[in-house]
Structure formats: C-alpha cells, structure tokens
C-alpha cells in the first residue's frame, strides 16, 4: 500500500538516466529506478504515454521503485531526436507516431535487460498509461517472458480495421490468443478512448479465449485519472487504482 512503510527503515531508491541496447541494437535512453537493496528484485518495463518520455513518467518509475521493483522506462521516442518532451512529441506526431514494431522491440530489449540484472528475482511485469497501456498489452502479447501486464486506459486496444495506420497496423485485441500473461485493466467509464463499449469488447475477447484478466472500471473518471498534473485527475479513483496496481504486481511478481 502507498504510504505504509515503516519509519524505522524506509526503503531508499536510486534513479538515473542511462542508455541500454534497445530494439534493433540501437543505444537508447532509459530512466531506471530501483530500491537500494541487495535483495532479489522483480522488474517492471514501464512504457510511457503518448505525450512522451516525460517528467510524470520519471516520477511514476520512482513510485514503483519505492514499492520494491527495479523499473526501466525506455525512451520509446529516442530515435526521433531530443528536445523538451513536448517538442519531441510534436516531431513524433508529425511523423505519424512511433511504430508498434519499434515499441515491441524496445519492450523485448528492456525485458532482457532486467533479466540480466544481478539481483533479479526472475519476474517481470509491464505497464503503461494511454498509448502506453495499449503498448503494454501489445508487448505482453508478442514478447514471451512477462509475468504480469497492466493496461491503464489504453486507447486503441480495440480498433476497427479501417482505423489502422502504418505505425499501428494491428489492434492488440487481435493478439488476444497469444496473450499468456495475467492482465489487469483499469478504466474510467467516461473515457472516450477506450469507451466503456470498447472495454466490453476487449473483456469479451479475453473471456472467450479463457485468459487470466481482471478489469476495474471507475465511475466519475475518464481518461488519465491518475495524472495529478492535469485536470483529468480524480483523487479517489486514482488512489484506489494505485492500490490495485501495487496488489496485482505484488501477487504476480513478488511471490
């Protein structure tokens, strides 16, 4: 649980910007946060949202690290050049978005990086918000080796074929049969993408395929309801979501 550490011995965390070998052998940036401990640690591949590899995601990584995970958040936009996060987002937008194949390759590389760590416990999860939620489902479906995946309001998991783009040619729901990783999904019922109806469609596909999943839907919340830096923030729903994130990862990665 959040804010439940003992003041007698709180866990310190370290965080740094580093580079690692991403998809295609490219050296790309990553934000890495971890608890200061010699104990074996589970890992998390944190996939950033559409606005980019930004300060929110650095703080997101630190929060997860504080709860006992080694977290790597690769800069999925690293190959587009560098500038402020919103300048980079503009460049990515102007080029039609990051390629799904690129994200899957970087996700696989980040998984391998975590598994190579000396104090790794053998378990790795992945999660993301917004486009990162969609990417988390995609990566967990296509890359073997993940033990848990969390989709936080990923828009486009369910999409019509006519909505396919060169960067997003296949909707992740099409890979449901291949998803062999327990999935937690958290959604706001007022979201426009994914809509409640799209979440229903995804849930029906998971049920039909007999997949291990858990969905929670919040009234009074839309897209991005844990984004405390925006007007989308919903305190009650956000704190409940955090408890579900911690509980799910603890059950799947720390046992």
């Amino acid at each position, binding site marked *: 649980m959040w804010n439940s550490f003992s003041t007698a011995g709180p866990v310190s965390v370290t965080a740094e910007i580093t580079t690692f070998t991403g998809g295609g052998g490219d050296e790309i940036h990553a934000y890495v946060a971890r608890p200061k401990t010699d104990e074996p640690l589970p890992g998390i591949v944190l996939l950033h949202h559409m606005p980019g590899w930004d300060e929110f995601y650095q703080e997101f990584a630190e929060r997860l690290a504080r709860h006992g995970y080694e977290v790597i958040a690769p800069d999925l936009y690293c190959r587009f050049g560098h500038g402020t996060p919103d300048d980079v987002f*503009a460049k990515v*937008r102007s080029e039609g978005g990051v390629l799904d194949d690129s994200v899957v390759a970087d996700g696989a590389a980040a998984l391998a990086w975590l598994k190579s760590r000396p104090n790794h416990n053998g378990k790795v999860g992945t999660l993301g918000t*917004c486009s990162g939620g969609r990417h988390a489902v995609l990566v967990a479906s296509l890359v073997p080796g993940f033990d848990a995946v969390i989709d936080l309001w990923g828009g486009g998991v369910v999409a019509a074929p006519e909505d396919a783009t060169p960067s997003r040619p296949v909707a992740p729901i099409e890979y449901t049969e291949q998803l062999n990783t327990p999935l937690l999904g958290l959604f706001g019922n007022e979201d426009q993408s994914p809509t409640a109806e799209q979440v229903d469609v995804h849930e029906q596909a998971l049920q039909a395929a007999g997949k291990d999943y858990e969905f929670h839907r919040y009234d009074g919340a839309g897209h991005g309801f844990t984004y405390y830096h925006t007007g989308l923030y919903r305190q009650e729903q956000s704190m409940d979501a955090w408890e579900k994130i911690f509980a799910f990862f603890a059950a799947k990665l720390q046992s």
Partner: protein
Amino acid sequence: MCTMIAETSSISGMAKNENGWFAVTRATVGYDHATHSKAEHALLIDFTNYDIGLGARVALELDLESGRALLAQLQSAIVQAEATGLH
C-alpha cells in the same frame, strides 16, 4: 484518448520563437492530447524546421471554436490577398 489525428505538410515561411526568427519547413495540424491547455484535447498546430532542431518550433493549442475562427480568418485574408493581384 489518443486520436492519432495529425496531418503534416511542407510549408515555406518564417516563424519566431524565443531564439528569434527562423525558416519553417513543416506544418502539422492534429487533434490529440493537449500539453498545456486545460482541455484534455486540443487542435495542435506546429510550425517547425527539423533541419535546425526539435526546438525550432512554434506551437499552438487551440479549442475547436478558435480553430474554426482562425480558419475563417486565413481564408478571408487569402481571398483578399488574391483579389489585390499583388501575390
């Protein structure tokens, strides 16, 4: 919501940011997550020159009503300019 609505075209002109004037080569108009507007989504308009760098950018985030007003102003000014025969 990630709309993926974005259209990019080559343009010719000048823009000014905190570093002064620079030639712009590309315009992107989209409707997606706003970075600084209070609204969740906005018309995102970028005038850029990536030959200079990602910071060579003048950005606007507008609501749809403002976008429509801007579009009408542009159209009106272009019609008037063409009528002068000075282009």
